[in-house]
């Protein structure tokens, strides 16, 4: 294992937990759509991506374990709710299909930018994990862009659903850019690409370009970066998610399942 200063060690763990929690919750929420997608092909793609996201989360939780944290199963099933840091956007309770498409799209664009920034952290295990994750994520972004294209060019009804999905998600997008714990973690890691403002700028540029190709109206400026965007205390859906995750396990917390 590479030697990190205690300060960097702690900063890296806090960055990784936000990323892993996002991935886990996206997989968890995605699995709610199992067997309920519009077409069987969509169902197959959807379940693949949900498994991928949860697999990525497990990989990242393992990196945290490598850094001295608890096991991945402990992270998911035993961590107090106040120690979770998913972005508000990813935890939103299930709404309609179009909103799930737009949420996935916004998240995938952001996640690609974030992964690109994470590569600059000098931690070989993370670089290796990101390489592995990238192979699967390349498919995710292609798939979800195709879904957005279908909604954008799919006639008035689809366009209306799409506009509604974008409007619902837009207010929660700033939650993605914060780092949850200490906001200066990116400075400690000497990684300016992880600056929330840089992430937001890159995100807006990417989305603006894509919206133009889809002839979609720009929804207006994003809100300011939400320092509480990953705060469990400000997230009414997180406690419910945690309760679902633990519902069976807590029957016999120390037993094999």
């Amino acid at each position, binding site marked *: 294992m590479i030697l990190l200063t205690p300060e960097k060690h702690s900063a890296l763990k806090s960055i990784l937990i936000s990323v892993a929690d996002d991935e886990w919750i996206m997989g*968890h929420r995605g*699995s*709610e759509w*199992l*067997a*309920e*997608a*519009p*077409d*069987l*092909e*969509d*169902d*197959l793609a959807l*379940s*693949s991506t*949900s*498994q991928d996201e*949860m*697999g990525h989360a*497990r990989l990242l939780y393992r990196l945290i374990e490598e850094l001295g944290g608890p096991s*991945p*199963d402990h992270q*998911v*099933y035993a961590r107090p709710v106040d120690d979770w840091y998913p972005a508000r956007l990813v935890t939103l309770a299930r709404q309609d*299909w*179009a909103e799930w498409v737009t949420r996935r799209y916004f998240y995938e664009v952001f996640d690609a930018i974030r992964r690109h920034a994470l590569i600059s952290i000098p931690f070989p295990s993370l670089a290796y994990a990101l390489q592995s994750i990238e192979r699967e994520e390349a498919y995710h972004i292609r798939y979800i862009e195709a879904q957005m*294209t*279908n*909604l*954008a*060019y*799919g*006639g008035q*009804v*689809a366009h209306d*659903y799409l506009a509604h999905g974008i409007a619902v998600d837009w207010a929660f997008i700033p939650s993605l850019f914060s780092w949850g714990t200490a906001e200066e973690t990116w400075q400690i890691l000497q990684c300016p690409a992880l600056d929330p403002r840089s992430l937001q700028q890159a995100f807006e540029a990417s989305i603006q370009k894509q919206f133009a190709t889809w002839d979609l109206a720009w929804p207006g400026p994003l809100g300011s970066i939400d320092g509480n965007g990953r705060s469990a205390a400000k997230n009414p859906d997180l406690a419910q998610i945690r309760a*679902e*995750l633990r*519902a*069976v*396990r807590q*029957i*016999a917390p120390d*037993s*094999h*399942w």
Partner: protein
Amino acid sequence: MDLMHHSKEEFIEQIAAGNKVDTGDWMPDDYRQLLIKQIHMHAISEIMGAYPEKEWVKYAPTIQRKLALNAKIQDEIGHGHMLLRLAEDLSAPLGRGREDLLHDVLDGRVKFHNVFHMSAPSWADAGVIGFLVDGGAIITQAMLLASSYAPYARMLKRIVAEESFHMQFGESVVLALASGTEVQREMLQQAINRWWPAMMFFFGPREMGPQSQRMLEYRIRTMTNEELRQKFIARYVPRIHALGMTLSDHELYQDPDPPHFWHYTDPDWDWFNDMVHHNTGPMSQARLALRRGAQEGLAWARHAALQAHATIDVRAATL
């Protein structure tokens, strides 16, 4: 199968000689109808089978279980998808496509297996479905590997291979529960009690109806309902006892003399029949509502995909 004269008698002779029917081959109308009935019902059962397990994905108690259950459901949908493609091919001359075939379950024009009408109120049910239902399905589908319709038999090779993974998932869950706390063991016992009578119905009535008999004659299937059920009982009674669990059927015993027939309590044939034919099971309507949400509620998304492709094609042509 090469049939010069396309006569039903020749067709039956060829099948009796062990020859297979392949895509595009001529076939008697009633053979086609029986195939559609069998494969359509199989496809829809795979899809409807996703719902009881889906209920437990969000509650799965370990990361590995959650991923495995998610993958299992994906496989079931994948099986439904492949089988529907077969049913589509067979139904094409009748002017029926995928939308029709998927819609049929909402209108009660195609049945699905009794087990997927049942409730699955605990995590143990998610395991027992893999253990018993997938185990039962493997017995049925292994028999169908010898089907006279070659495309079905070929597809089943892959399906049976994946179902065996599903059964292993179920076995792993029930083993963990059986070796767990008293609460976990009781959860497992209750689930076995719930699913055993449903599994006795799963293979069909003791005396097969005329259509099933016809399927035997055409070698679409090669074993009777009772032969399949006997195989299931013989395989699972010792396994359940090895887990330290019991079966509450007091009439369950095996003849000591050959052919060592297993006696069992008849399931409530009328109750299960009504459930399958009229969707009156404990969870029939709730699961059909989920299916309806995808099929009817999201029809706009399928139309949008078609329209988007047409729009993009027009734009490309005008550039």
